């Protein structure tokens, strides 16, 4: 128990240290985050992430899963959850030899939820990342012509920064043991920037920074439902089916091109009034819980990004968004599966290791970006995690490692090998409930 408390404090301090940099330069990642609206994130729960995906069917008293509002009806405790991720991406391919290794640490969102009616009606709020653009490439070149006596060597660095966040809030309602529904309202906002820095080693040459930025915001909604069938194959087992749909959203955008750094930027062009129409996203999941010690889950999702339209690509006032136009967008679908084993099941009197949950998950994804418009990109990923109980009932610490590969080295594209770890603290306590005994 002492170990768990120490770990909890350490994690909270670590997460606290990351808070100030969330949304700013938090590191670098895949070049594919340059396309579309950046690399898509999957806000769900620590449990669902370790099992490979969004887990829209995973009912849990210990986690609030943001991927399906219908699951919010199951709450018993008031919960706060926050987490951070740490990921390294090694990329190779294209016309450049060698390997690029980039690392990023990111705050992974914060959730707050509580029951209005115990295991009947619950409310949840979240502030979570939706996408992230964080690429970085650097090339050394020599100017093709120069009036100077010597050659003029320079370096160009391309950086992607920013992404979309989401403030979400909604409720989940359980009609009976069989079915529950939920809905949330989502406000998406954020800025995505592509920066180009030209620098020199010769004296009297100053660095120039050109930044193409697009500020986006949209209103959307997510609807979800969940079905639970008990005693299907054996006594006390549960088969759960969940589905959620995030409605299409029109991301209004204002594009600006600026020169200079941070507060000393000069805006050289602005184009407002455009929009990127995001498609609907449908998620479906099945979870089978043969006993309280074992959970099996399979999930899938689909988003027809190839149908996305943008009115920010057809003028020459500024740069096009998304990069390369909507032709670089492709239908996205994912398939994931995972297993969780918790030896103690619901027995809270067993030992620490028995109450720890052990998880494995795998996922396959067809990416929603196709930079050369002809090649479909895929990602495969494996995850392994543990969920540590603490001395505080309802509070757990989840650690998940992941390793994956995406992209291809053919067609002048690159392949990313990525790996990392994420940590999430989920704190649960009884709030707002009257004492029965005085």
């Amino acid at each position, binding site marked *: 128990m002492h170990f768990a408390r120490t770990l909890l404090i350490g994690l909270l301090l670590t997460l606290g*240290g*990351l808070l100030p*940099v969330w949304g700013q330069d*938090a*590191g*670098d990642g*895949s070049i*594919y985050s*340059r*396309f579309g609206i950046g690399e898509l994130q999957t806000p769900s729960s620590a449990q669902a992430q370790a099992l490979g995906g969004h887990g829209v069917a995973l009912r849990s008293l210990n986690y609030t899963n943001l991927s399906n509002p219908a699951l919010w009806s199951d709450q018993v405790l008031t919960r706060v959850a926050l987490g*951070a991720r*740490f990921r390294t991406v090694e*990329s*190779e391919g*294209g*016309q*450049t030899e*060698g*390997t*690029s*290794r*980039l*690392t*990023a*640490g990111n705050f992974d969102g914060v959730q707050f939820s509580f029951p209005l009616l115990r295991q009947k009606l619950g409310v949840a709020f979240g502030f979570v990342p939706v996408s992230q653009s964080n690429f970085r*490439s*650097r*090339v050394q*070149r020599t100017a*093709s012509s*120069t*009036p*100077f006596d010597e050659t*003029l060597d*320079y370096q*160009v*660095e*391309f950086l992607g920064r920013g992404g979309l966040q989401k403030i979400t809030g909604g409720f989940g309602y359980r009609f009976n043991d069989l079915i529950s529904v939920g809905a949330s309202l989502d406000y998406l906002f954020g800025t995505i920037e592509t920066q*180009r*820095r*030209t620098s*020199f080693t010769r004296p*009297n*040459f*100053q660095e*120039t920074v*050109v930044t193409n930025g697009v500020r986006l915001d949209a209103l959307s909604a997510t609807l979800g439902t969940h079905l639970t069938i008990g005693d299907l194959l054996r006594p006390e087992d549960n088969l759960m089916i969940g589905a959620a749909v995030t409605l299409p959203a029109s991301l209004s955008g204002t594009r600006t*091109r600026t*020169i*200079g750094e941070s507060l000393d930027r*000069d805006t*050289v062009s602005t184009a407002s009034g455009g929009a990127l129409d995001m498609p609907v996203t449908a998620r479906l999941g099945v979870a089978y819980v043969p006993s309280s010690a074992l959970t099996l889950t399979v999930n899938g999702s689909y988003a027809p990004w190839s149908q996305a339209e943008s009115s920010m690509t057809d003028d020459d006032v500024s740069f096009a968004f998304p*990069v390369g*136009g909507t032709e*670089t967008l492709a239908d996205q679908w994912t398939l994931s599966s995972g297993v969780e084993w918790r030896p103690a099941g619901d027995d809270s009197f067993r030992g620490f290791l028995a109450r720890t949950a052990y998880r494995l998950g795998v996922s396959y994804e067809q990416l929603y970006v196709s*930079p*050369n*418009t002809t090649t479909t990109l895929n990602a495969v990923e494996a995850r392994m995690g543990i969920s540590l109980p603490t001395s505080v009932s309802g509070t757990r610490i989840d650690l998940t490692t992941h390793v994956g590969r995406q992209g291809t080295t053919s067609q002048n*594209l*690159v392949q990313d090998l990525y790996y990392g770890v994420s940590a999430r603290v989920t704190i649960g306590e009884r709030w707002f409930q009257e004492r029965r005994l005085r």
Partner: protein
Amino acid sequence: MLFLTACDDNPTGVGVDVGDDPLQGGEPVTVNLPPTSLNVERRAPVTGAVAGNLPERFFAGRVNDPLVGTTEAQGFLNLFQPIEELSGSLYNDPLTDVSLRLAPISVYGDTTSTVTMALYDMPAPWDGAGARSDTTLAEGEQILTFELDPTDEETLVPLPRTWINENEPVLRDTTGGGEAFLDAFAGFRIAPSSGNAVIGFNRNDTALRVATSTDTTNFNGRVSLTTIERTPSDALPDDRVLVQGGFANALTFTYDFDAPPLDTLRGTPVNRAEFVLPVDTTLWADSTPDGFARPTPDSYSFTGTSTDGDQTVTLSSNLTPFDEGLRFTGDTPARIFEEGFLRESAFSEFVITPNATEGGTSNEISLDVALFHRLPTAPDAPDAEGPRATVTVTPY
């Protein structure tokens, strides 16, 4: 985590060429931008000052420069009366000798021959403080002519007995604590008589040496002034321009950021900028006879006139020329062009003035000469030869 993020990154060019719209651009391009206009401002600078103020120099002589033309300078000098020393022998005994002590500090012209100067009395007191080089003063009677070797460190010019006798009472009159001397003694004018050189003097090293049989004192220089006249040379080509201290002493040029070619660079970030104002070393050498000294400025001041015309901003107070001309680079030129490309030009005009001392003092005077290129008039003239700004930009 943040520490690891910072130290573990190894970005390369991997990914730059991904997609049909790859990451591109960022190549710097260097362009030569001639000024929209370039002229010489002929000013009549302040050449007069009293002791303790600049300029301390004054000039006298005439030089016929094959490149510049004829420059004639007349020096005016008035003196302090050393009241406290005018006692005893100096106050009572007859003056045995009165000489003007001159110490040449610079030569412009023929250094191989002596020059002849004429020394004149000034007929009336004159106010030299703040007077300019085109000042006209009343002429007095000539006292004498004397020869001066430009290479001598000191020349003593003995004044004739008649002048001593005539001025002895005035030199010794300490009435009113020196007021009488100031009212009655107006000093000297030194004008060229013959020869081919203009000699520079320092007022503080110039004195009237007054002696009796037993004692000597100095009436040191109190106020000086130089008047300058120039007759330009016909040999100067149209595509060259002279900047000469004391006469045509400012090179002015402008950049119109709203006109071609500068307007095509609007919004373009600037990596580097350098003002280049080349000088003609060939014509200079061809026009310089043996033994002829033509001083050049050791440094220049580079100023800008604000767009609203209210302010003169010193951009560089000590710009050192190179053999091939004047170059000015660094943060300031880069900011000037960045300002012009991204916002509005901060300056309506740029002015280059030769400094007269090594320390960069532009309040001193000189006759230093520099031979700059004018803007080329031929449409196909190479833009890398004339006055220009060499600007490196990164188009987006």
